[in-house]
């Protein structure tokens, strides 16, 4: 069987910086923060919540442009997913005929279905003890694969539709599974990525687990602080990132513009603890993807870290990177985009990979916002604290999740097919 090269032909994003990839790039490359204080609203629902900050989308989504018979089945998370998917499809120049051919599919996920819809659904159900006021679309808004299913319905997709809901690793797994489906010739192309909607219950969960930032409520743009000695937890956010992956052959046949190439994917489990990621697991996962792809340590120019701003997670990730790279004399640049975007959970790997593509295009690496003093308990790695004029050819993207689910993607620039 001929293995296919897997290239990127379209990207779409909706983020705390607004609708579209250009709004995302503008926010990140001008070093802005999407984090705001939402305490007044959140305390109406959870009176004792300590974290008051979130990275929220505040623009009007103009969701009525999605036809009603599709929109009725969409909660916020699916609306975000569909808007980003539409942008990516348009950029790739794909038509509805491609999606109805059976050759193109969807791999898209989120941490959960729409939290707002679930909150309303269960609230009404528990209060009334009756089905009478439940609308038909409510379950479709809440189900775990709502984002993937709604994209598929909106675009009349007849190929495979998969939804690897794995919390913060959802988008990385979606992109990875789409990559594998194309690489092995099962599909010509896939819309892949992840979405997340911000809801008080999501931040409340991180708050409960003492993983949410709560000391910068009055200075929301100063948190999260990945790898910094003064970090105090992550900041939940929302958004959606969509990427069109295609076989190189199909993309070339269509005359599509190729933006980059995925050359490796590894997903692996810690298999021992629900919320703790360990250095040794990460080292093993990184070494495996390098072995599988034949990529040498010195080939990786930049690592886009998971780096959420939690005490333990940042420490374990950076120590693993030190052990794999720096201890052997290699010094790839490392930064996390969580300081700009917050932690957009199920959307994070997709949004961040899209920014990585722009770093390749611009020849400019983005630093970790809010990183001033690297924590001595973190690894001794090449932290980026300022923008750096470097054109990376090969980028490693980390994405780790509750449940011990970890994923790594390798992104390579694509210039004249080399």
């Amino acid at each position, binding site marked *: 069987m001929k293995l296919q090269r897997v290239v990127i032909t379209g990207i779409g994003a909706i983020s705390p910086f607004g609708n579209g990839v250009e709004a995302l790039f503008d926010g990140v490359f001008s070093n802005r923060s999407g984090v705001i204080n939402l305490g007044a609203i959140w305390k109406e629902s959870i009176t004792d919540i300590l974290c008051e900050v979130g990275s929220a989308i505040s623009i009007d989504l103009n969701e009525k442009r999605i036809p009603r018979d599709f929109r009725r089945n969409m909660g916020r998370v699916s609306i975000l997913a569909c808007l980003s998917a539409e942008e990516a499809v348009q950029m790739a120049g794909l038509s509805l005929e491609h999606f109805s051919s059976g050759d193109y599919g969807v791999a898209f996920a989120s941490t959960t279905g729409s939290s707002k819809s679930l909150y309303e659904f269960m609230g009404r159900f528990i209060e009334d003890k009756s089905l009478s006021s*439940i609308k038909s679309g409510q379950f479709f808004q809440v189900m775990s694969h709502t984002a993937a299913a709604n994209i598929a319905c909106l675009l009349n997709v007849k190929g495979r539709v998969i939804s690897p809901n794995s919390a913060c690793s959802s988008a990385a797994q979606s992109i990875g599974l789409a990559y594998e489906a194309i690489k092995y010739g099962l599909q010509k192309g896939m819309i892949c990525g992840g979405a997340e909607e911000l809801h008080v219950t999501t931040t409340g969960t991180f708050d409960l687990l003492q993983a949410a930032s709560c000391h910068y409520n009055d200075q929301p743009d100063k948190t999260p602080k990945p790898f910094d000695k003064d970090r105090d937890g992550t900041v939940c956010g929302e958004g959606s990132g969509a990427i069109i992956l295609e076989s190189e052959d199909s993309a070339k046949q269509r005359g599509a513009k190729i933006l980059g190439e995925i050359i490796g994917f590894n997903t692996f489990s810690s298999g021992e603890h629900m919320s703790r990621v360990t250095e040794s697991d990460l080292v093993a996962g990184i070494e495996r993807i390098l072995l599988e792809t034949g990529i040498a340590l010195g080939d990786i120019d930049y690592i886009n870290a998971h780096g959420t701003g939690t005490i333990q997670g940042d420490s374990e990730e950076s120590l693993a990177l030190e052990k794999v790279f720096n201890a052997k004399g290699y010094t790839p640049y490392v930064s996390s985009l969580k300081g700009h975007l917050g932690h957009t959970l199920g959307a994070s790997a997709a949004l961040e990979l899209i920014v990585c593509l722009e770093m390749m295009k611009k020849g400019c690496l983005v630093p970790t916002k809010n990183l001033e003093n690297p924590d001595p308990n973190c690894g001794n790695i090449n932290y980026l604290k300022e923008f750096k004029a470097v054109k990376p050819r090969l980028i490693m993207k980390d994405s780790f999740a509750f449940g011990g689910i970890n994923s790594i993607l390798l992104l390579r620039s694509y210039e004249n097919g080399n």
Partner: protein
Amino acid sequence: MEINEIFQKVKKVFVDEFEIEENLITKESLIFEELGLDSLDSVDLIVALEKAFNFKIDRANDGPVISQIRSIQDIIKYVNSKQS
């Protein structure tokens, strides 16, 4: 409530809930064939009628009647029967 008042309220349900242009809705309109509702919409129609007319639809007893509704006129008749 007079028949015409019921019609106006039903019309408002179709405009607000199903985003159908008001001038397309007549008493004779067929809700599936002409106004484009589907099986999922018929569930939402019940919820919307309950809210608009402030009555409860008994799913066990009213189900057979509801399932026979085909037109705006059928809805008006049903709402009128619930009132009486």
